[in-house]
């Protein structure tokens, strides 16, 4: 089923391989969700698993987000380790009661007697007219709830390790996958060894002295592109890929800011009460004197995202926007730099082969 001879792989395939690995090694793990056994297999991430492990391990569910989450909690407190998936984060909003009142609190509320080891994969939509209710980046909501962990992978090289670490964690973990990360291709030689990856650790994935960018998920992918171009202009950026939003690895952020003195946070969520704002707050409160200039954020606007592809480019920032902001923060005139390679001919697809429909 898994074509390991191929030298390339992608983000979605890495998720599937991670799921396959845990299903094979831990009989208490289960996959649950609408579509996990269907012919598309949740963007390919569960394809073939139901045939391999059967209906008691890979469980198709009704369209009942709230109860299914509660059923997952019930399975988790009685010895199973459910991995739940929602093809769009927006639908999971129906499950807030079970997430917030049950999963997040169960261990604390009942005096530490029962833990809730569930992993909830939420896929965010992007581009191709996903519109107001299929493209929401609400990761900051989940970080506001005590008792939850929030993982937001960005790279195909370690998504599998992060997923396995999330599943092994004895707590409820929200695992947020940007749809556009799914198509990210890598060479198999760059895959990170499982054993070294932990939840709650950020990583400096590009190194530089001039400015710190903090990002997660697809924002990291966009930032990498900007950072690589800026390096050609002798502008060197420290890029912190958060990987986990909660618990947050503040040490890695703070030590980078202490080195560069300048901070830009790139966040796909909307501006008000964003996770970017939280990072700015944390840095200002504990490392104010390390800052050489006002920290900045790039976020989505505080407006619902419309559907029309005639206008959505104004609602999503891209790698060029990141580069421009960096240049401004460094006191440079962006007009003096050729940033054209950061602009794609079609802004609403991750690559030319992507034709939706969702």
């Amino acid at each position, binding site marked *: 089923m898994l074509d390991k001879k191929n030298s390339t792989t992608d983000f979605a395939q890495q998720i599937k391989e991670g799921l396959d690995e845990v299903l094979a090694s831990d009989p208490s793990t289960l996959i649950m969700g609408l579509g996990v056994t269907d012919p598309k297999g949740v963007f390919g991430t569960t394809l073939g698993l139901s045939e391999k492990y059967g209906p*008691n391990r890979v469980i198709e*569910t*009704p369209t*009942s987000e*709230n*109860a*299914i*989450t*509660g*059923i*997952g*909690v*019930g*399975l*988790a*407190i*009685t*010895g*199973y380790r459910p991995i739940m998936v929602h093809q769009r984060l927006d639908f999971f909003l129906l499950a807030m*009661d*079970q997430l917030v*009142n*049950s999963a997040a609190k*169960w*261990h*604390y*509320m*009942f*005096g*530490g*007697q*029962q*833990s*809730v*080891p569930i992993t909830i994969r939420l896929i965010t939509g992007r581009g191709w007219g996903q519109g107001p209710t299929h493209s929401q980046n609400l990761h900051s909501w989940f970080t506001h709830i*005590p*008792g939850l*962990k929030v993982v937001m992978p960005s790279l195909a090289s370690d998504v599998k390790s992060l997923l396995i670490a999330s599943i092994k964690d*004895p*707590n409820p973990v929200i695992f947020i996958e940007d749809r556009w990360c799914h198509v990210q291709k890598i060479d198999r030689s760059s895959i990170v060894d499982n054993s070294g990856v932990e939840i709650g650790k950020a990583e400096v994935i590009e190194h530089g002295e001039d400015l710190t960018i903090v990002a997660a998920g697809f924002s990291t992918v966009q930032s990498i592109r900007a950072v690589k171009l800026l390096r050609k202009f002798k502008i060197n950026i420290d890029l912190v890929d958060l990987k986990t939003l909660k618990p947050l690895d503040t040490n890695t952020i703070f030590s980078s800011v202490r080195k560069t003195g300048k901070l830009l946070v790139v966040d796909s969520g909307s501006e008000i009460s964003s996770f970017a704002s939280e990072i700015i707050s944390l840095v200002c409160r504990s490392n104010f004197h390390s800052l050489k200039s006002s920290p900045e954020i790039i976020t989505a606007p505080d407006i619902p995202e419309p559907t029309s592809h005639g206008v959505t480019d104004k609602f999503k920032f891209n790698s060029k926007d990141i580069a421009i902001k960096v240049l401004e923060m460094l006191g440079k005139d962006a007009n003096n730099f050729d940033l054209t390679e950061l602009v794609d001919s079609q802004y609403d697809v991750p690559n030319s082969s992507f034709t939706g429909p969702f």
Partner: protein
Amino acid sequence: MSKDLDRLLKCFELASRIRSVEENIVKEYANNQMRCPVHLSIGQEIVSAVVGLNQRIQDTAVSSHRAHAHYLAKGGDLYKMIAEIYGKVTGCCKGRGGSMHLIDLEVGFLGSSAIVGNSIPIGVGAGFTHKLNNSDALSFVFLGDGAIEEGSFYESVNFSAVQNLPIVYICENNLYSVYTGLNMRQPATRNIYEMVGALGVNAVKIETADVVNCLNLTTEVINQARLEKKPIFIEYDTYRWLEHCGPNDDDSLGYRPAGELSKWKSEDPISKLENILVSSYGVSSSSIKEIQNKISEEVSLAFNQAKKDEFPTLEQSVTDVYAR
């Protein structure tokens, strides 16, 4: 002692014990030391008693905000519940949950939850575990008529029907959600159990008026669920004598039709059961008194100890946010 008499005595003892605990909470609440919301089951105890007699230790149960009776009938530790209501560190949740969050894993009471309808899917998840484990255990899900109106109820019943899970839904229809009567919330022509039956789950209504019959039918239905390992829904008609939340009589508020409360009180299942035991089974009134004294003693002990216990310290209240 005949098997019948033995069961009826146990049922009487279970229900009387629950009432005694609840009446002690009523008494103590005025001292302002039980500083959390309490939802009492006075008037409704018989349901927990007839179900409790048919629960096994390996069965699991979940319940709602009005959970004292269900917890006690499943065998939950009385002292730990009272300590929890007093907010003491010796409580079943170390003082974190209060009256609305009860747990006793030693007897399979997995937890009760304050949000209406919240614990229903969790009980379904436990039932799923019993099925996956090929166990004979049943998952008991206690709920009220209000929870029937929650989406989580419909979603849960549907899933348990699709997956054929060994779940016993116990619906205590006490006619009110807070102060709002059933007739303002659900169509008068629709019976709860019939609606649930239409969802694909075997559903019955058991009248509590005839206590002996209520116990026998309950046993029959639960035995059937155990045999078939399929979901089953039982609706009981019952009545809450006190206010929705708190220790007081609230008949003066006028939301109940005149005479309704007094009619239900005159039909008190516990008094009826006592009469049956005395008149039909020849149980002496001194034996009844003996049962009641034993209960009073146990309840007093639990309250006295709980009152003396310590509150949690701050250090004890900031652990366990995450499991390790």
